[in-house]
C-alpha cells in the first residue's frame, strides 16, 4: 500500500487543528493576502479532514497524544465518527462561506478598512477552535476550545460595526463568558471529586449532580436553548451574512456537541429518565417559541435567526429519546445527522438572505416582492434549503426528522412525535410566509445592485448539498456511528 494510507492519523489530526492556526498567523502578517490565504487554508483543512475520514473508515477511531506527553500533563486528541463528521461539515461550510465572503465583504472593506481583514484571522481562529473542540478528549481542553470559539465568535459578530451589531455582540460576549464560567466551575467540581479530567463516568454523588447542573447550564446558554436564547437572534441577525451563516450553522452546534459528549459519556450514570426529559421539555418549548417568533419576524435575517432558535430545539430531543428508555444508537445517529443537515441548510439560507440584502439594499420581508423573478438562483437555493429545514423529502432534514420520529414512535413517545410533526408544520408556515411575498409579481426591476456570481453559486451549492445529504444518508450515518460511546448506553438511563 502506498499513498495516503501510509500517513499516520496523527498527522491528519494535527493538520486539522494547526493549519487554521497557521493561516491565521500568516494573515496577521500578510494582511493584503488574507482572502487568498483564507481560501487556500480552507482547502488544506478540508484535505486534512478528508484524510482523517479516510483513516477512520479504514482503521476505526484514532488518537493523538500531543508531544508524547500523556494526560493529565499532555493533551490528547481523539478522532471518532462524530468528531470527524463535525469537522467535515465545518470544512465544507467553511470553504463555501469563505468563497462567498471574498465577494460579500468587499464594499465593507472599502469604507471602514477592517471588515475583510479582520474577518479572515478571526474566522481562522474560530475554525481552529472548532476543530480542536471536536477532537478534544478531556474536560479542560474542552473548556479552552469553548473559550476560543466563544471569543472568536463575538469578534465576528461585532464585525458589522453598526450600533445594533455591537450591542448584540456585547450581550453575546457576556452570555458566552458566563456560560464558560459555569462550565469551568463544573470542571473544578469534577476534578475535585474524581481527580481526573477524562470523560469517564462520575459517581452519583451530590457533587456530581452539582457539576452536571453547572456545566449543562453553561452549555445551554451557549447553545441558546429556550429560555436562554435571547442573545442569539440579535447577534445572528445583525452580523454580516457570512458570519451569520457560520454562527448559526456551526458555532451553536459546537457547544451542543460538548453537551452531547458530557451527557452520554461523563454523566451517563447520573441521568435518570426524569433528568433526560428536562431538555426534552425545553426542546419542545424552543421549537414552538422559535417558530412563532420566526412567523412574526419582519426582517428576513431575523426570521432565519429565530428559525435557528427553533431548530436548536430538535437537537435536544436526543436526550429523552436516547437516554430515557429508548435505544441510544439510532437517536445519536439521528441527532448528528440532524446537525449536518441543519448546518448545510442554514448556511445556505443565510447566504441567500445575504444576497437579498445586497441586491435589495434591505431585508424587510413585506417589501421583497419580485425576489423570485429577479434573484431566481438565490431564491431557488433558499427554497431548497427551506425544504430541508422543514424536513420534507428528499432532503437531509427529512432523513434526520424521520430517524428522530422513528426513535420516538418505537419508544412510544407520542408527545415528542407530535412535537416533531408540529414543528415541521410551523417551519413550513414561516418559510412560505417569506415566499408568499417573494413570489409576488412586480413588473419592473427593484434591485439596487448586481451580485457577483459566486455569491449566488455558493448559496446554491450549499442548498443542493443539504438535498444531496438526504440521498447519501446511508454511508454518512455509518461514518457518524464509528466509535460511539457504548458505555452507559440506554442501560444507564434506567431502562426497565
Amino acid at each position: 500500500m502506498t499513498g495516503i494510507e501510509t500517513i499516520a492519523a496523527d498527522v491528519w489530526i494535527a493538520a486539522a487543528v494547526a493549519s487554521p492556526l497557521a493561516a491565521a498567523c500568516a494573515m496577521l502578517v500578510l494582511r493584503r493576502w488574507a482572502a487568498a490565504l483564507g481560501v487556500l487554508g480552507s482547502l488544506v483543512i478540508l484535505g486534512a479532514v478528508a484524510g482523517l475520514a479516510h483513516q477512520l473508515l479504514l482503521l476505526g477511531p484514532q488518537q493523538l497524544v500531543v508531544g508524547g506527553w500523556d494526560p493529565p500533563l499532555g493533551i490528547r486528541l481523539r478522532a471518532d465518527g462524530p468528531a470527524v463528521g463535525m469537522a467535515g461539515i465545518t470544512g465544507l461550510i467553511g470553504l463555501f462561506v469563505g468563497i462567498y465572503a471574498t465577494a460579500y465583504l468587499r464594499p465593507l472593506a472599502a469604507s471602514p478598512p477592517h471588515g475583510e481583514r479582520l474577518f479572515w484571522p478571526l474566522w481562522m481562529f474560530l475554525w481552529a477552535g472548532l476543530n480542536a473542540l471536536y477532537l478534544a478528549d478531556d474536560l479542560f481542553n474542552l473548556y479552552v476550545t469553548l473559550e476560543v470559539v466563544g471569543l472568536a465568535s463575538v469578534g465576528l459578530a461585532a464585525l458589522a460595526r453598526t450600533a445594533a451589531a455591537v450591542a448584540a455582540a456585547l450581550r453575546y460576549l457576556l452570555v458566552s463568558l458566563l456560560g464558560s464560567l459555569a462550565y469551568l466551575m463544573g470542571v473544578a467540581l469534577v476534578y475535585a471529586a474524581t481527580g481526573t479530567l477524562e470523560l469517564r463516568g462520575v459517581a452519583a454523588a451530590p457533587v456530581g449532580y452539582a457539576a452536571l447542573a453547572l456545566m449543562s447550564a453553561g452549555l445551554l446558554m451557549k447553545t441558546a436553548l429556550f429560555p436562554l436564547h435571547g442573545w442569539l437572534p440579535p447577534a445572528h441577525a445583525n452580523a454580516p451574512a457570512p458570519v451569520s451563516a457560520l454562527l448559526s450553522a456551526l458555532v451553536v452546534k459546537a457547544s451542543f456537541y460538548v453537551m452531547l459528549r458530557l451527557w452520554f459519556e461523563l454523566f451517563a450514570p447520573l441521568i435518570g429518565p426524569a433528568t433526560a426529559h428536562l431538555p426534552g421539555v425545553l426542546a419542545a418549548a424552543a421549537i414552538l417559541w422559535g417558530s412563532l417568533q420566526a412567523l412574526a419576524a419582519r426582517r428576513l435575517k431575523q426570521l432565519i435567526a429565530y428559525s435557528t432558535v427553533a431548530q436548536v430545539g430538535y437537537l435536544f430531543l436526543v436526550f429523552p429519546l436516547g437516554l430515557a428508555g429508548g435505544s441510544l444508537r439510532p437517536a445519536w445517529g439521528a441527532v448528528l445527522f440532524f446537525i449536518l443537515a441543519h448546518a448545510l441548510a442554514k448556511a445556505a439560507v443565510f447566504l441567500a438572505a445575504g444576497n437579498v440584502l445586497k441586491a435589495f439594499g434591505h431585508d424587510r420581508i413585506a417589501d421583497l416582492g419580485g425576489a423570485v423573478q429577479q434573484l431566481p438562483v438565490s431564491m431557488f437555493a433558499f427554497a431548497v434549503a427551506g425544504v430541508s429545514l422543514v424536513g420534507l423529502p428528499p432532503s437531509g432534514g427529512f432523513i434526520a426528522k424521520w430517524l428522530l420520529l422513528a426513535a420516538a414512535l418505537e419508544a412510544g413517545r407520542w408527545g415528542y412525535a407530535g412535537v416533531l410533526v408540529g414543528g415541521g408544520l410551523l417551519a413550513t408556515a414561516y418559510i412560505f410566509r417569506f415566499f408568499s411575498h417573494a413570489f409576488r409579481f412586480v413588473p419592473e426591476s427593484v434591485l439596487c445592485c448586481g451580485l457577483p456570481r459566486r455569491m449566488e453559486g455558493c448559496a446554491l451549492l450549499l442548498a443542493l448539498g443539504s438535498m444531496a445529504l438526504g440521498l447519501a444518508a446511508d454511508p454518512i450515518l455509518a461514518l457518524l456511528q464509528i466509535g460511539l460511546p457504548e458505555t452507559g448506553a440506554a442501560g444507564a438511563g434506567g431502562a426497565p
Partner: protein
Amino acid sequence: MTFDNWLPLSILLTSLIPGALIFMIPEERRGLRTSLNMGAAVLKLALVALMVWGVRHEHVYETRLPLAAGLQLVLAADALSVLLAALSSVLWFVTTLYAIAYLEHSPQSRSRFFGFFSLCVSSTLGIALAGNLITFLLFYEMLTLTTYPLVVHRGTPASMRAGKIYLAYTIGGGALFLLAVAWLTALTGPLDFTGGGVLRRFADPHAGELRVIFFLLIAGLGVKAALVPLHGWLPQAMVAPAPVSALLHAVAVVKAGAFGIVRVVYDVYGIQFAAELGVLRPLAVLAAVTIVYGSVRALFQDDLKKRLAYSTVSQVSYIALGAGILGPLATLGGMVHLVHQGLMKITLFFCAGNVAEGAGIHRISRMAGIGRRFPVTMAAFSLAAFGMIGVPPMAGFISKWFLAAGALAAGEGWVIGVLAASSALNAAYFLPILHTVWFKPPEGPPPAAGPTPRGRLEIGWMLLAPPAVTALLALTSGLLADAYLSPLWWTRLIVDREYLP
C-alpha cells in the same frame, strides 16, 4: 444491475433532468426550451410504452436504493403503476404542447414554469412507480412542493392567497400521512406494496392500531383527493393558469391522492383484510358523500373553472368509492375511472382555457352562442361533458356501469342511488352549459379577440389539438372498451392479479 433495474429510474430521470436543465435556459431561448420539453416528453412516452409491453409480459422492473437504516427508495412497475404512468406520460405530452402555446405571452418566467412543470411530472411518475409507502411519501411531498410555484405562477394577490390555502391543506395532509407511515413502519418494519396486501399477519395484536392508521392514511391522502371535508383548496387553486389546472385535476395532485387510496386499500392492507377490519364501509360512505356534495356545489357556480373544480371533487371520489366496495367489479369500475376521469377532465379544462384565452370569457352566463366561434373546442367540451354525465358509449359510462354492477354484487344497493343522483346532478350542471353554448344567440358585440394569432382555425393549433385528441381518447376508450390495451382491458389485468393471487 440490468436494464430492467434501471428502467423505472430512467423514466423518472427523463423529466427530472430536463426539468433541472430548463431552469438554466435563458428566457429568450424559446426554441431550445421547447425542444427540450417536447424531446423529454417523447422519450418518456417511448420508455413508458416499453414498460407497458414488459409488464404485460410479466417482466419485473425494480430499482432499489438504500437511503438510510430502514429507509429504502423502491421504484417498481406493476400493472397498477403502469396505469398511472401511462396516463401521466400521455397527458403530459399534450399538456406540454398546450402550455407552450398558452404561456407564450406571459410576462412571468417561462423557464421557471416549465422547470417546475417537469419536476411536477417527475413527482407524479414517482408516485406511480413507488414500490413502498416511504417512496410514495417522498414523491407525494415533492408533488406538493413542485406544484406550489405553478399555482402561484402569476404572482397576483389572488394567486398568492390560493397558494397559501393550497399549501395549508396539502402540507397538513402530508404531515398526517408522514405520521401514519412512521407509525406503521414502527409497528411492522419496512414493507413493500404487494398485491393482496401485507398487513394481515400483524392483525393479531395490532388490529386496533391498524384501524387508526388506516384513517390517518386516508385523511392524509384525502386532502389531495379532495374528499369532503378536506376539499377546500381545490376550488381556490383555480386561479392557476389553465394548463396547470388541467394537470392538477387530471393527473397530478388529485390523482395522486386517489391513487394513494387505491394503493393503501389494495396493496398495503389488502381489500379482504380491510373489509374484515371494518374500515371499507366508512371509506365508501365518505366517498359517496363527496360525490353528491361536489355535484350539488357545482350546480351553483357561474365561473366555468370553479364549476369544473367542484365537478372534480365529485368525480374523483368514484375512484375512492370503487376502493371502498369489496369485489372485482367495483374495483374495476373505480380503477378504470383513474384513466377515464383524467381524459375527460383534462379536455374540459383545455376547452375552458381556450375560451378564456381566445375570447376572455370566464363565466358560463357569458358563453351564449360561443359554440359558433369555437366549434371544435366546444365539440370536444360536449363530448367530455357527456362522458362525465355517463352517457353511453363515452368512457364515463363504463366506469359508472361497473361501479353499479360491483355495488349490486357486494350487496351495497345504496350505492346505486348515489350513482343515479350524481348522474342526474352531473346532467343538471353540464347540460345547461351545452345549451347556452350551442343554442342561445350570442349577446352583445362580439368579444375582442385575445392575443393569440388567428388563422383559419378558431385558435392556434397547439391550443386546439390537445383537447381534440383527449376528447377522442375519451370517446374511444369508451367505444372500444374491450379492445386490446384499452384502459378497461388493462384494469382487468390488474383486477385479475389482485383477486387471484
